[in-house]
């Protein structure tokens, strides 16, 4: 058994449109360890949702490989296996829950698809609802429209967890919910994580949330991971100028807010027009001579598992590379 639940190796996803070819994912590699809470952060359009879809096999790859427990996830049976072991929930449960199905049917469906014995269904559905804090007798016969946003997200989590997967990918799971309800949903997820050693991926634009709850964070920009490492290192001591800019922009709910600051200019470019060299260089306050020509790879910065793709660190990188990774 490998330490990684899932591994993504150098994957690329392209979307063709009238405006050209969008490089939605452009050589992304990522390891997701068993029981780990991994945060994937970045602005809209950076490719974080595409990455999740690619990992679930919902997106065809231009290149690269996704594996679970060291085994490829391509092919029909491998995909079935993947879905049993890793599940996904989305931002808006109102759009993903079938409006004409009752909670009972929604949560039972994965068991039917995976061919779990009928006799087990009711017990497992009740258990899953209890796990997410919904009293089965009150909610089994309800339709999605009869529930609040928070309750619907709980149903989505129950349906994802009824198969007792080892991993759950959450794409902006709480960004549509009110603050008080948001905390409840996060508490449900983290409690399950702790009790079952469930691995979680939080895809979010909320850096404070990722910092607060994740073991590790990967920061994406225009289809690439530009920095990754332990959550505290990446957010409190960011290395890549883009991560620094993101952290600086976070509004702070404390007296005085975040104070005065220098903000990044401009916007995320279109993925059909990825700049040459370092893709961040046109917006980068620290760019220097070769940044518009040399595409930087991820290199170790500081601690062994903290990496950034920036030429500022390429010299340090040569020394660091001799240290075995993951030491």
């Amino acid at each position, binding site marked *: 058994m490998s330490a990684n639940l899932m591994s993504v190796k150098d994957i690329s996803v392209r979307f063709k449109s009238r405006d050209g070819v969008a490089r939605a994912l452009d050589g992304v590699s990522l390891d997701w360890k068993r029981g780990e809470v991994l945060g994937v952060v970045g602005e809209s359009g950076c490719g974080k949702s595409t990455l999740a879809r690619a990992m679930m096999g919902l997106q065809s790859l231009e290149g690269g490989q996704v594996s679970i427990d060291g085994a490829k996830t391509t092919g029909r049976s491998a995909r079935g296996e993947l879905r049993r072991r890793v599940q996904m929930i989305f931002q808006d449960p109102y759009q993903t829950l079938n409006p004409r199905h009752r909670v009972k049917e929604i949560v039972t469906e994965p068991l039917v698809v995976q061919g779990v014995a009928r006799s087990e269904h009711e017990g497992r559905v009740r258990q899953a609802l209890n796990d997410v804090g919904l009293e089965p007798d009150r909610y089994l016969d309800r339709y999605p429209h009869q529930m609040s946003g928070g309750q619907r997200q709980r149903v989505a989590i129950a349906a994802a967890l009824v198969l007792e997967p080892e991993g759950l990918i959450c794409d902006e799971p709480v960004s549509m919910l009110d603050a008080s309800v948001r905390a409840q949903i996060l508490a449900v997820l983290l409690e399950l994580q702790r009790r079952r050693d469930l691995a979680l991926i939080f895809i979010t634009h909320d850096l*404070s949330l990722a910092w607060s709850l994740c073991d590790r964070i990967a920061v994406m920009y225009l289809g690439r991971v530009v920095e990754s490492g332990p*959550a505290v290192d990446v957010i409190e001591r960011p290395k890549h100028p883009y991560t620094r800019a993101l952290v600086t922009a976070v509004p702070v*709910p404390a007296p005085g807010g975040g104070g005065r600051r220098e903000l990044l200019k401009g916007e995320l470019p279109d993925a059909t027009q990825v700049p040459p060299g370092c893709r961040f260089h046109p917006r980068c306050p620290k760019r220097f001579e070769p940044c518009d020509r040399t595409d930087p790879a991820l290199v170790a910065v500081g601690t062994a598992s903290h990496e950034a793709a920036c030429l500022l660190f390429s010299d340090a990188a040569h020394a660091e590379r001799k240290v075995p990774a993951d030491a």
Partner: protein
Amino acid sequence: MSQLLKVEGLRVEHGSKAIVDGVDIKLQRGESLGLAGESGCGKTTTALALMKMLPEGLSQSGGITLSPAGVDEPIRINKRTEAGMQVVRWRHISLVFQGAMNSLDPVQRIDSQISEVIRLHEEQVSGREVRSRVDELLTTVGLTPVLGGRYPHQLSGGQRQRVMIALALACRPSLVIADEPTTALDVVMQAQVLQLLERLRDELGLALILISHDLGVLAETCDRIAVMYAGRIVETGAVDSVFADPQHPYTKRLLASLPVIGGERGLAPPIPGGPPDPGDPPAGCAFHPRCPYSQERCLEDPPLREVVPGHSAACHFSPWRSWPAVGDPTIGVRS
């Protein structure tokens, strides 16, 4: 500073249900007030009532008086007819809607949408002046005037939101109400738009009512804050005072649930339950069923009263000197 806006006992009813139930607001010229709260608490309804733009079926009562600089008689908004309001809206108060960037006319170019607003309110201006003001407005909100020739779909979300702010400023109002102006934007663009609002406030002496569910956004941008719950203001005061020393259990628990980078990691015990139905709050203190500190007395209505200088709360037990610990504080604390 002199007073710009005074709202007294604002009530908005849907049939016999009060969605906004006795809201008082005072705003000085050039001041910014943040209106916080979860969905259904009445913050957007309050904003619409200030503009007398409530949808059909809702009725409002209570005094709303606006005293813009250079206008001799205070404008008594609550006494104005619809026709009378049309000369007030956009000219004296304007509104940047929630998700406003999708409310631009898709088949009209940006510059003609802005000049239409100017012409509607100021019939005397010449075509040349309108054109130069449109360019000036676009520059003010950080867009190059060239973008005026584009259609909304040719702009990004952040650019469209800037156009909406330019529209709100077109007639040089003294009060802008912005309802979740950055909710649909990414963090960098959000920070840019908030910085823009702050700069405009300095430069134009604009007063701002900023409505947001995001307490971080309000902490960054506002002088004062009012926290709403079930149609009422439950806490209000200077932003720093409310964030440093909240005096209502709702505000306290909300703030505790928000991570602050560099502070304590993990998840504080969440507030149980959900916000009450609009217009149908629990008796007494509307927060009492969710409050970890509630007692029998909470079945009585707590008045909003000053508990710390310049800082009011509607809780029988304010001022709170210390907060007893609630539940297991270690959920999700990770190494």
